């Protein structure tokens, strides 16, 4: 199983489409026959899962965007979210 750590560079897979749902004004990840509604924190992470940044970089960027937010806690959240994407087969591997 793919290990998600600080150095891992996540990228949403071919089957997943990140989309702003205009009805609920929330981001969703749509994939075959399913949809995942994202809260604002998850959407902020998902938007950065484009294959250009590591988990550590994503956490650092989010910490910078939200002043005073603890970077370590954010990194744990990123690892948890990316692991969930992995388990659903939504990461490019």
């Amino acid at each position, binding site marked *: *199983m*793919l290990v998600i750590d600080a150095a891992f560079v996540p990228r949403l897979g*071919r*089957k997943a*489409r990140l*989309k702003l*749902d205009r*009805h609920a004004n929330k981001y*969703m990840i*749509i*994939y*075959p*026959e*399913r*949809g995942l509604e994202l809260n604002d924190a998850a959407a902020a992470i998902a938007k950065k899962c484009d294959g250009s940044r590591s988990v550590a970089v994503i956490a650092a960027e989010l910490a910078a965007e939200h002043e005073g937010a603890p970077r370590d806690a954010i990194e744990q959240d990123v690892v948890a979210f990316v692991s969930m994407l*992995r*388990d*659903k*087969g939504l*990461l490019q*591997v």
Partner: protein
Amino acid sequence: MTPRPYTLIAELTYRCPLRCPYCSNPTDYLAYKNELTTEDWCRVFGEAEELGVVQLHLTGGEPLARKDLEVLAARAREVGLYVNLVTSGIPLTRERLLGLAQAGVDHVQVSVQSSRAELADEIGGYAGHARKLDVMRWVKELDLPLTMNVVLHRANLDEIDELVALAEEVGADRLELANTQYLNWALSNRDVLLPTREQIERAAEKAAPHRERLRGRMDVLFVKPDYFGATPKACMDGWARRFVQIVPDGRVVPCHAATSITALVFENVRGRPLKEIWASSPALLAYRGEAWMQEPCRSCDRRAIDFGGCRCQAFALTGDAAATDPACHLSAHRASIDTAHAAADAGGQARRYLYRGKPPNEGKTTP
């Protein structure tokens, strides 16, 4: 409050070269001659998106039988829908598949009848298995997500390991191992299709470790049949709640079998905007929510979980679409399912399917 549908199931046509004995199309499918036009469907896709739909299933019958499928896929993608092509893969060339991918198809689901070519072709009533394998490989070559779908029943339920191996070999992203739901054609063939309870248990036990082993690479779904359980399935997540379906002639229904409930009159998108039909069609309101429920559903703790089960199954087996689904242990009609299971356990019927596309008496099951 009117619920938001997330998925539109667009049954573009009931024409199909295959004749699977568990087909979800109505048994009177030949009566659906007046198919919606390209313009009708294109308008409806926009109306569906406005209503909240995000997932579109282009299905049938065989959607490839529609010459305008590329136009429809492009329009659906243009309005932002996630386009699932649900197909037998027959007839399809690599060129046409490429065109469909370029038009906007997001995901392809291909049906497979068995891991063994000879049996697959017997079940489908058409020599198509070898071509399906080609189609699945093309899907992956074009970098499209692939679901391999297998409807399970007595004749193929013992093939779980082989079916998983086939799905891995073709590179499927998802494998749906879906036990037959006994409605429409499958109900006509129930005594031939119904497996033994031991078969189902063994298959479920075999599927579970594959699901664990392949997690993150291939999503392995094993859908247990509702006949097997003590409580009914949450059919369609509730009547006219999360799914909206349109049959080839344009009528708006909640599911594949709803037109079998003869008392209901479904409204047509040719005459009225989809949004109005969804909100106020008496047939869609008939079993939406809980007001229609009788006992034991009305006071049941599970009524918001399983919605009383399947209305079409209730109608087919009891004659009352508002009855508790006989798959429920609390149904007064549960014996009809247990009796069918007992007959299957005792050996079932010889494998002689009633195929669509043949006169009613030809190929009919005989004791």
